[in-house]
């Protein structure tokens, strides 16, 4: 069971690489705060309109210029609201749910993305630094009209 010298070196290199990758990922997850969705509330998908946030999907200004809540419904095959606008540099907290099947939510060109699962409310927080118009697409297959599901995000100068 002797292991060749070069192979030992390769194993050592592999170990170092794995540890280095994990340290970097761990640092950005837990210190720098690049976190994936993890909060979830439960909701009855057949009665989302009984929840004021989803009865009237909208952008809500909590602290002007600093914190905005977005209440969003993803359904076959559209988002409401269809267009949202937030100022650059503000924290934007998205609450998204679905009354029918699973959907995706991806702000193209950014790392803002989440799965939307009926029975749950997905909660994610994001900050957009570059003003402009962004395309939001559904990237979880949701039926025959999946390719139509899109929305627009406007990041204003503030």
């Amino acid at each position, binding site marked *: 069971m002797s292991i060749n010298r070069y192979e030992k070196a390769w194993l050592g290199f592999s170990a170092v690489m*794995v540890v280095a*990758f994990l340290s970097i990922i761990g640092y950005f997850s837990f210190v720098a705060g690049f976190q994936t969705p993890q909060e979830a509330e*439960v909701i009855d998908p057949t009665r989302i309109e009984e929840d004021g946030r989803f009865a009237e999907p909208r952008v809500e200004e909590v602290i002007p210029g600093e914190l905005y809540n977005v209440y969003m419904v993803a359904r076959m095959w559209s988002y409401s609201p269809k267009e949202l606008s937030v100022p650059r540099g503000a924290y934007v907290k998205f609450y998204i749910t679905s009354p029918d099947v699973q959907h995706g939510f991806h702000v193209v*060109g950014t790392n803002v993305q989440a799965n939307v699962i009926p*029975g*749950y409310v997905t909660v994610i927080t994001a900050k957009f630094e570059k003003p402009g118009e962004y395309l939001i697409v559904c990237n*979880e297959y949701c039926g025959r009209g999946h*390719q139509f599901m899109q929305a627009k995000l406007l990041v204003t100068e503030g």
Partner: protein
Amino acid sequence: MGYREDGLIKLGLYVSYVALALGALFGLLQVLERIPGVTIVSAGTYYLALTAHGVLMALVFTTFFIMSLATYVVTRELGMDTYSPKLNRLSYALVALGTVMAAVPILLGKASVLYTFYPPMKASPFFYIGATVLVIGTWVFAANLLLTVRKWRSAGNSGKLPLGVFGVVATLIIWYIATIGVAIEMLFQLIPWSLGVVERIDPLLARNFFWYFGHPLVYFWLLPAYIAWYTILPRLLNVRLFSDFLARVVFVLFILFSTPVGYHHQFMDPGIEAGWKFLHTTTTFFVFVPSLITAFTITATMEMAARARGGRGLLGWVRALPWRDPVFASIAFAMILFGFGGATGAVNAGNNLNYVVHNTAWIPGHLHLTVGTAVALTFMGLSYLLLPQLVGRELHSRRLALVQVYLWFFGMLLFSSAMHYLGILGSPRRTYDVSFGGAQVAQEWGPFLIAAAAGGVLLFASVALFLYNVLRTITSGARVELQQPGEVPVPEGAPGIVDNFRLFVAIALVLVLIAYLLPTAKIISLGTPGAPPVEIR
């Protein structure tokens, strides 16, 4: 004359080729349909085809080929029929029955739920029941092979298992552990719900069980390819494997780490805490290690062979390898592209890098390098070796075989690079038409969609060449003497620590419990009222 199972081995291979043929046809349709401005079929048909492509390629082609390969390896390396050829027949029959039960609703458009069948989108109950019968068939199959190994042992063979059989046992163990997840999802969630026995389903819990199964599933595909790399490549090159011990360590590491990693498919899901996601990131990086060892062992084996043939220089030896041998070339290219696939897999595996590429075209870009090449190209190359031996005919054309392998390599480079790049640009996967009403960003995707289509056409041509060659071999290849089952060399040495499968299964189950028990309990305790079924429209 071969072994009693040889008829079924052949039949399994033929079924896998039919799946490959249909799958490739649907694949071609997909790449062409996605070119901007091209419309060939309706959206509904596209998603039907995509479901069929995923199921045929990832489940039917692989499963039938693997069953035949595993039977081939076990009978040849142990030099005996399986424990019960009857049980073997039963298993093939069940897998075939399950396949038909699932395939009919797919082709009728009653199960366009893709091969991940996420609820609450609901397929015909036959789809779920068929998939379950298929899995039960594989359990019977695996039991028969494990009993064969046991019979071999009780016949007085106390030495190490031959390496190929060792790999098969590891593959089957992983399969048993993995399928617990999908069995729970089917029996306790999908089947009763699709039959209307229960009204609602928890889609997050279903994803949890699906990916418990879905990731180790990839090792069920990959390990048989590794078995070929480890056992057939050295024979092809006439050298000894660089390290038999480390090859066994590789298979053991897969038993340990292939299952507690599923959340790397669910980084974007709500309701699973960051700590658990990071734990699964960690184990995912651990499961890279056996593949890194494999890359070393196989490359070193090739280098030994090349130097023995007069290759020299730091890298110049590469030229001394038999690049004109289609079987060798298929394995070598499979490995090279798998190297790229491993690198892009490292991106998928990082919980906070994943959100750039999750559910984008990057993912099919990645999976066509792994299952779509490391596995599929190896299987095609192996066919050139195994079929002639099984049917007693010479390969119709080595030239065509070689062209086929090179076509796949370059086609896949093009297809997969384009898909990866589309993913970085944010273009979603599983989407009929990505023009999004002419949105600005979506217009930038056009050239890469065309490049992906060009690659896809080369891949389709490659599959067509492969099938033609196989068909000609079976029907009109020159007759050769069938190989007699000869004396089987038994590996030297007594079983060591790495041969202690019971121990590793126990550790693997503990790791699975650590990785899944609490977060699964957490999902259940959230107590969602669940979602009623939504019929596919």
